[in-house]
């Protein structure tokens, strides 16, 4: 009997640690949706910059808003944007990459030229440009970051399709009378799943960080909505008087990134056949 994947994962410390941290991140985002102790955007000037207490576990900010409520609702924004970006970039990228690799010829040449051009821009600069053109809003970062990460997915999938399409089972599918499109979707694409899943977790991490950077620069979700990057940006002025303003979102961001990266490493180990017998 071969081991199921969760049994393999349970034996790996980095997978367990990553899984726990991701669970914390996701429950924070869930809490941000269903319940926060205070309204994250409610202003209370009587309680400006109050230190952590029983009433406000992580204190309040310069507008008197409850920090823990803002961290939780910021989680919804940050995690949501990262997840959407990762989903859109991988699914569209996988499709484009698969078509390029499988059909080749002129379509491959044109698309890859475009992807190379995209890849030449640093992804954050690229995202900045998109946000500048389309204006700030909750979905612009998703669009911007998806476009920025698309080329890496396209490249990875195309490369693995190029390797797969000369395998005999692809010919076998043709001989059975299957169309090219069916062969691509049924036999080739599922076999690229492993690298794509690993890449999807990486993109999730990158997008989380990039969204915070955009918000930090004031190009993310527009205020007063909470986001971790925006909170970090606002906290700079008050750092000496109210360090909790910076520590709370910073810590949330670090935990999430650490979790995603640990889990990504575990996935890579799991899918890489050379690591299997270790």
């Amino acid at each position: 009997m071969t081991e199921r994947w969760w049994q393999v994962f349970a034996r790996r410390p980095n997978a367990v640690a990553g899984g726990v941290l991701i669970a914390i991140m996701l429950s924070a985002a869930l809490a941000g949706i269903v319940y926060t102790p205070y309204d994250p955007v409610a202003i209370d000037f009587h309680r400006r910059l109050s230190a952590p207490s029983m009433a406000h576990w992580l204190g309040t900010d310069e507008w008197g808003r409850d920090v823990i409520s803002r961290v939780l609702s910021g989680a919804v924004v940050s995690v949501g944007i990262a997840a959407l970006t990762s989903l859109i970039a991988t699914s569209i990228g996988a499709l484009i990459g698969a078509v390029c690799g499988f059909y080749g010829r002129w379509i491959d040449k044109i698309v890859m030229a475009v992807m190379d051009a995209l890849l030449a821009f640093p992804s954050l600069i690229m995202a900045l440009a998109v946000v500048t053109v389309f204006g700030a809003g909750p979905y612009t970062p998703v669009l911007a970051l998806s476009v920025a990460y698309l080329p890496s997915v396209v490249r990875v999938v195309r490369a693995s399709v190029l390797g797969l399409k000369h395998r005999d089972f692809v010919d076998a599918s043709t001989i059975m009378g299957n169309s090219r499109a069916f062969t691509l979707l049924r036999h080739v694409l599922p076999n690229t799943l492993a690298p794509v899943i690993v890449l999807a977790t990486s993109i999730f991490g990158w997008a989380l960080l990039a969204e915070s950077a955009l918000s930090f620069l004031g190009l993310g979700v527009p205020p007063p909505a909470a986001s971790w990057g925006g909170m970090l940006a606002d906290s700079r002025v008050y750092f000496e008087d109210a360090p909790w303003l910076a520590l709370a979102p910073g810590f949330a961001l670090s935990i999430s990134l650490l979790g995603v990266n640990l889990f990504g490493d575990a996935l890579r180990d799991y899918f890489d056949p050379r690591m299997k017998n270790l």
Partner: protein
Amino acid sequence: MSRVLTIEKLSIDIRAGGAGTRRVVNDVSLSIDSGRIAALVGESGSGKTLIGRSVMRLLPPVAALVGGDIVFNGASLTKLDETQMRSLRGRQIGAVFQEPMVSLNPALTIGFQMMEAMRLHERVSQAEARRRCMTMLEKVRIVDPEEALRAHPRQFSGGMRQRIMLASVLAMRPRLLIADEPTTALDALIRKEIMDLMVALTREIGTSVLLISHDLAMVAQYSDDVTVLRQGETVEQGSPAGMLLRPTHEYTRALMDALPARAPTNGVVRAPLVEINDLCVDFHRKRGLLSRRAAAKRAVDKASLSIFDGEVLAVVGESGSGKTTIGRTLLRLCDSSSGSIRFDGQDFNGMDADAVARFRTRTQMVFQDPFSSLDPRMTLGAAVAEGLRHVAGLEHGERLRRAAEILEEVGLPGAYVERYPHELSGGQRQRVCIARAVVARPRFIVADEPVSALDVTIQRQVLKLLTQLQEKYGFTYLFISHDLGVVEQMADRVAVMFRGRVLEVGPRNTIFDSPLHPYTMRLLEATPRLVRRADGAFELHTFPTRRQPAPAGHGYFNNGCIPGAPESVGAPLMIEVAAGHSVCCARAER
């Protein structure tokens, strides 16, 4: 004559997973006198490779020598320390292994690797070492030894690399050469060349050889003494003439009986199912950035063949002869450049989408590499059931039921339906591929080297399965192979190819007993065969039959397949010399 190597009551254990050990070699004794060739034969798992490695004291870490003694030149190898052993390896005991592709270091030049051992063991000058290497390379017939010393392994083919290996090992003039399946990975013609070179060179130097092989015919041809092993135990020892040709021991007899032998052909002449006329297939190399002209390589060159309904037509040839390309073109996996193919009377060029779809339901293929021909993410049941996707009016459940049925028929019953390819051995995977090919009852199956990736014992079972299925369902096979032994067993008719040309076509018995084209003869000569005589004893056939003159006014067509003779200038021409037996000729020059 002095004794070079004595192995006395050798036993080797392997640590099995977890606790406990398993005895893999038990009480084996053998001895080799100087200048003799002793062979160890047995199926895989018989422990023959471990015995060879134990002489080098290079057992894998899981194996341990637990009993017996190995005496080399009067000294017991088991008592030597590692330093003393190192001075023996390479200098006194040389080794050649099966995989020429991996036994040379790709990062170092041939010269460096050859001279390394020499300078390590004997304090010779660079110039002297170089001179000796060049002499050795010349002896193994490397064309430009000077150049070869500067070259890297990747610049040589598998056969050339094996010759270089041989040269570099024998340059040390060892007393003993351990040759572990030295030619198994090679084409027939190259195999013969390497074996002949090895025998000639070791004889010249006076080196004894421990030849490890599963190939009984080769052992019978080249060795002086034979030891037959079964699961680590000696079954029989003796001379090849006595023991192999007149087998008495039950196990040896079973081995000999399992040799490929001619099955009777069904002599019924039927209508042609596939007709190939003047087929050419070109491969276009990728165009460079600057040059617009595509470089084309002709893989199949004006081939004409017919495949009759219900027969097995075997196409034989070395790698690069175009045999695989013909098979792929017949299944519309490659485009032809010119010429015509008709399947069941219908021309390939005239097929519309519907006709192609119908064609697909009637043709199938079995691939060479069972590790690449199954989708790793599909269960065996799903993979086989997919073969029925285009059969009209079949429910999903019915397809799965039929898949399970056919899997059972190929010997993978019950729970195998739910398994994944990575859980199977190569032979089992090949059975799945066969099940997938036959599940929709096609008429025509291309089997491209279906057994050459498999172990000999498994080969036999898979061939038997192919024959059984053909008898039951009446398929027509195009059987592509480089192994004449397998072809002799399977084929009704044989076509011989070289560099894209069909050189000779005829009924199997004619091709094997009275071939005409010199290239066919070369192939046959390179494949020693053990053939059963009427009295039950065996005979070693190393051929050749007499060379026959070409039909009047013609010479045999030569496109490089007959070395030493001038290549034909005129156009090749298939001449039918007897009913169904054609040979490729060219008009003789005045």
